[in-house]
C-alpha cells in the first residue's frame, strides 16, 4: 500500500513470530492428549484463531497498515462471526 511501502519488518521479528507459531502448533497437538470433553473443539479453535491473528498482523503486515484498512479487515471477521451465530439460531433450537 502506498503509505507503507517504506516499512519492512525486521527478519528478527518475523523469526520470533515463526517460532511462536511453531510452538502453538505443538500446543495444538499436545492438548489432544488431555480429555477436555466439550471444550476440546473450543480450545483448538482458540489456538487457531490466535495463530491466524499473528499471521495477519505480522506476516500480512496488518499491524503496520492504516487504521482504515485494519477496521475493514476487522469488520470482515465480525461479519463472519455474526453469520455463524445466526446459523446457530437454527441449530440450537431445531
Amino acid at each position: 500500500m502506498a503509505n507503507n511501502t517504506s516499512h519492512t519488518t525486521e527478519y528478527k521479528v518475523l523469526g520470533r513470530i515463526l517460532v511462536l507459531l511453531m510452538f502453538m502448533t505443538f500446543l495444538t497437538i499436545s492438548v489432544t492428549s488431555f480429555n477436555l470433553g466439550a471444550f476440546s473443539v473450543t480450545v483448538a479453535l482458540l489456538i487457531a484463531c490466535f495463530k491466524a491473528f499473528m499471521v495477519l498482523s505480522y506476516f500480512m503486515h496488518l499491524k503496520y497498515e492504516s487504521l482504515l484498512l485494519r477496521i475493514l479487515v476487522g469488520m470482515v471477521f465480525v461479519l463472519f462471526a455474526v453469520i455463524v451465530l445466526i446459523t446457530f439460531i437454527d441449530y440450537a433450537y431445531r
Partner: protein
Amino acid sequence: MSKATEKIEYVSYLDHQSKYKGIFAWIFATDHKRIGLLYMYAIAAFFVIGAFLGLAMRIELIAPGETIMKPQTYNGIFTVHGIIMIFMVVIPGLSAVFGNFFLPILIGAKDVAFPKLNRFSWWIFMVGSAMAVASQLLKSGPPDTGWTFYAPYSTTTGTNVIMATTAAFVLGFSSILTGLNFIVTIHQMRAPGMKFFNMPLFPWAIYATAWIQLLATPIIGITLVMLIAERLFGIGFFDPALGGDPLLYQHLFWIYSHPAVYVMILPAMGVISEIIPTFCQRKIYGYKAIALSSLAIAGVGFLVWGHHMYTSGMSENARWFFSLLTFIVAVPSAIKVFNWLATMYKGSIDMQPPFLYALEFIFLFIIGGTTGLILGSVATDVQVHDTSFVVAHFHYIIFGGMGFAFFAAIHYWLPKMYGRMYNLKRAKILSVVIFVGFNLLYFPQFIIGIQGMPRRYYDYLPQFQWAQVISTIGGFILVAGLLAMISNLIMGVRKGEIAPANPWQGSTLEWQIPSPPSLENFDEEIEIKENPYDYK
C-alpha cells in the same frame, strides 16, 4: 495519478494500436474499456441463448401434458437456463461490463488498479462459461437439479453435476477478482480531489457490490467443493445417514446466494441513480442517503439468507428472526426509490430511451420488491413457496430490475462507448414492446402461483392454462422485442449518427471527455465537482 499535464494527441481507445493485432488486440487487452466490451459481447451471447431456452420452456407450457419436450428435458432446460442467466449473465452483468468501462472514468482514473488481473478475470470467466456449456453437452446429460444444486438430490443424480458446479466455482473466481480489483481501484485510484463523497453514485454502488463479491463468493466456492467431495467420496456433510445435515447445504448455498442477488441489483440501482438526475436536469435528491443505503443493503443483505428456507424444516426461532431481518433490508431499498421519485419532482424531464427504461425499472422493481415482502413473511411464504409466484417475483426483480437497468445503461452510455447514436425513436418503441411483453409473460404467474401452480413442473392442471397461454404469448413478444432492441443497438454502433461528447447534458466525468474516450481517458485537465450532479 490521473491527470496528464501536457496535451496528448487524441486517439480513441477503439483506434489505439497496441502491440497485438486483430483479435489478439482484444483478448490480450488490459484497457478496462476493452475488457468491459469483451464481457458485454460474451454476456449478450449467453443472454440470447438463455432467452431461447426460456422460450422453449414457455412453448412446452402452452398446453398441459407433453407439448414439445419430455419431462427430463424440461428439468435440464430450466437448470441450464438458470445457470446461464444467474452465473453467466446477471451476476457479472452490470459490474463487469459497466463497472469495468465506467468506474475508472467516473472517479477520474486511467484504468483499474490491476489491469492484468482484470484481463485474467475475463479469461477465467470464459473458461468457466465454457465448462458450463460443456456440462450441458457431455455424455451423462445436463444437470437436472435446478441452478441451486440442492443436496441430497444433487449428490445422487447421475447427470453432469460435477462439471456444472466446477464451472460455477471457476466463474466465482472471476467475480472475486473483479470485486477485489474494484475495491482497490476505488480506494487508491481516485483523482486528486475526489473524496468518497464526491464520487457519483454508480461507483458507490459498485463499491458495495465489490465487497459482497469479495466476501460472499468464497462461500459458494467451498460449498460446491463440499458437494463435489460428497459425490465423489461420500463424506457425509449433507447425508443424514452419515451424520450430515441436508439443511447445512441450503444454509451455505444461500449465505452466498442471497447476497448474490444484491450483486445483481445494487449496480442496477447505481445506474438508475446516474440516469435520473441527467434526464431531469436536477441534482439528485438525498445523495448521501442513496450512497450509504448501498452499503446498508450490502451489510444487512448478508444476514437474511434464511428466508429461502422457511419451509425446509429450519427452527421456529430462526424463521421469525430471518423474517424480521428481511423486512429491515427492505428499508434502504425503499429509501432509494423515494429519492429517485423526489429527484424527478419538478425536474425538466426529457423522455429519452434511457430514462424510459429507468422508469420501467422503478415500476417493475416495486412489484418485485413488494411481492418479495410477501415471500419474506413466514406465514404467507408457506403458501406460495415453490410456486410460480416465486418465478414471477424473481423475474421481476432480476430481469425487471437488473435486466432493465442493463438496457437503460446501454442506451445511456452507448454514445460514449462507441461515439455513435442509435435510432432513438425505434429505441423508445421497443422499450415499450419489451415492457408489455415482460408483464404479459410474468404477471399471470403471480396469479396462478397463489392458486397453487408449482414451480419447475412441465405439466399442470387445465385450470391454469389461460394464464400459461398469456405468458407464452408475452414470451414471444418479449423475445422479439429483445432481438429488435439488440439489432437497433448494433445498427447504431455501425452506422448511427456521430454522437457528440455529451448528448444528454450529463454532469458526471464521463461526459467531459471525448466519445469514444482515449486510451487513458483523461488527456486534459478535468474538473472535480463538489457534488457530481450540480444541475441547479
